[in-house]
């Protein structure tokens, strides 16, 4: 579905990613792990044309999308939840969701989509007129995810959605993502800080260091000595 091929990209003169290759298949959850500053976010940003791409291509369903405009990416079914401030804090929950669903023209279809989203995130339904910044950290992540899902994506790019959540909520979020994947047939490319959780929950994982992919594999890479030592040994 998504193929990133020999991608070199960065910010202006500064190259961060060197010859990166990443693939996401249909209905697959793929995790990107690696230390702070490795370039995980930069990979997602590159898909959304927010970096300077110096080399390589990005294709989506056999169509090249390198440097596509945002609305073209959305039309093709790619949605992105960035890292950091992920909601319109001054807008209400309902307005945040409406921005996600702004391209749904039919009223009927819109309310059906909204009703469906509320079955996945029931907490949002009870706080429709609250401003987004009044939500808790977990609810904020839910809202951002819900807003992206309103766009009916085929591929969802999530940058550290578990950031700041308690271990219990992190676990719930991963379960929810798997549920959404099965239900919506959406592929998910997720950046995750917790290497163990990521490897366990994702179908495949890429390990990024200093802008290069240094390891790739399924759940079995949890046994890999390097992963064991560096990422699960407490130093990370």
């Amino acid at each position, binding site marked *: 579905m998504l193929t990133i091929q020999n991608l070199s990209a960065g910010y202006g003169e500064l190259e961060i990613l060197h010859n990166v290759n990443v693939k996401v298949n249909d209905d697959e959850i793929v995790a990107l792990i690696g230390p702070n500053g490795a370039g995980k976010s930069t990979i997602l940003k590159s898909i*959304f044309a927010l970096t300077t791409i110096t080399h390589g291509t990005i294709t989506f369903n056999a169509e090249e999308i390198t440097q596509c405009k945002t*609305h073209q990416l959305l039309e093709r079914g790619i949605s992105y939840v*960035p890292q950091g*401030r*992920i909601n319109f804090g*001054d*807008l209400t929950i309902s307005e945040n969701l409406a*921005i996600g669903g702004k391209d749904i023209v039919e009223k009927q279809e819109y309310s059906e989509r909204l009703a469906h989203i509320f079955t996945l995130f029931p907490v949002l339904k009870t706080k429709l007129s609250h401003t987004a*910044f009044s939500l808790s950290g977990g609810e904020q992540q839910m809202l951002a995810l819900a807003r992206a899902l309103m766009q009916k994506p085929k591929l969802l790019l999530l940058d550290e959605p578990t950031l700041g959540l308690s271990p219990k909520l992190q676990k719930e979020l991963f379960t929810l993502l798997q549920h959404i994947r099965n239900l919506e047939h959406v592929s998910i490319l997720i950046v995750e800080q917790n290497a163990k959780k990521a490897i366990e929950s994702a179908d495949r994982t890429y390990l990024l260091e200093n802008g290069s992919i240094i390891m790739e594999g399924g759940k079995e890479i949890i046994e890999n000595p390097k992963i064991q030592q560096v990422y699960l040994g407490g130093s990370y």
Partner: protein
Amino acid sequence: MSFPIAQLLANSLIIGSIYALVAVGFSLIYSTNRFVHLAHGATVVAAGYALYSTFTLLHLPFILACILTIALSSVIGFLMFKAIYEPLQKRKSSTVIMLIASIGLLTLIENLILLFFGADVKTIGLLEVRQGINIAGAIITPLQIVLVLTSLTLLTVFYLFMKKTTLGRNLRAVADHKELASIMGLNPTRLMAISFIIGSALAGIAGILIALEQNLDPSMGTDLMIKGFSGAIVGGIYSVPGSILGSYLVGTAENVGTWFLPSGYKNAITFTLLFLFLLLRPKGIFGVDKGVRE
């Protein structure tokens, strides 16, 4: 003479109504663009002179003259954005550069008006000065009543527009988080241009009202900008009701203050109020603590 409280309040309401129109347009532009568009004041004066040209000089019907004036104001605002601000933003100019550019534009437009119309004051002369009406001890002319009602109606419509319409919501989204708005498929640059068009139309209406109420002179834009800017800061620049309330406060401070002090202190009073707020409550009356912004 005893302290004429009713008259002072009436005068504050009248001038505050004009300041509020200047302030909400200014706030709208500020919140979506994040720079101080001081040339907004020049749009107000340009509108005053546009009304003078179309109505007083060309004898066009009043309504038509108003429509042309408002349209021209929007065009001026849009052109300032497209020709000056947008290219500067594309080059990632600092807020200081943007501020200097806006002062440059303010000076340029005021001087162009001076060049074309001269320094002597102009009067629109829509109505003969009529006998004022006595309302609770305050003398108010019918024109002033119309002015206040027009302003309050427009401010309400603008508030509802921002709260209830899709375009208003999208403008607030860009004001809140431009990068996210872009990621969600909104077009920030287009919405920033739209905020100039709408904000400048409001400036145009303020210009019409002030031209009907006072004599026009080319340098009044700076003065109005100071008042509108102060009103927006005092009330809370991201809040429509805040900017409105702040403007009425500025109008009141200036009217009550000049009852005790010579009228030459008018601007000093406004600045005192502005500094007090900048020092003690920089987010303004309606500012919120939790709405985190970088």
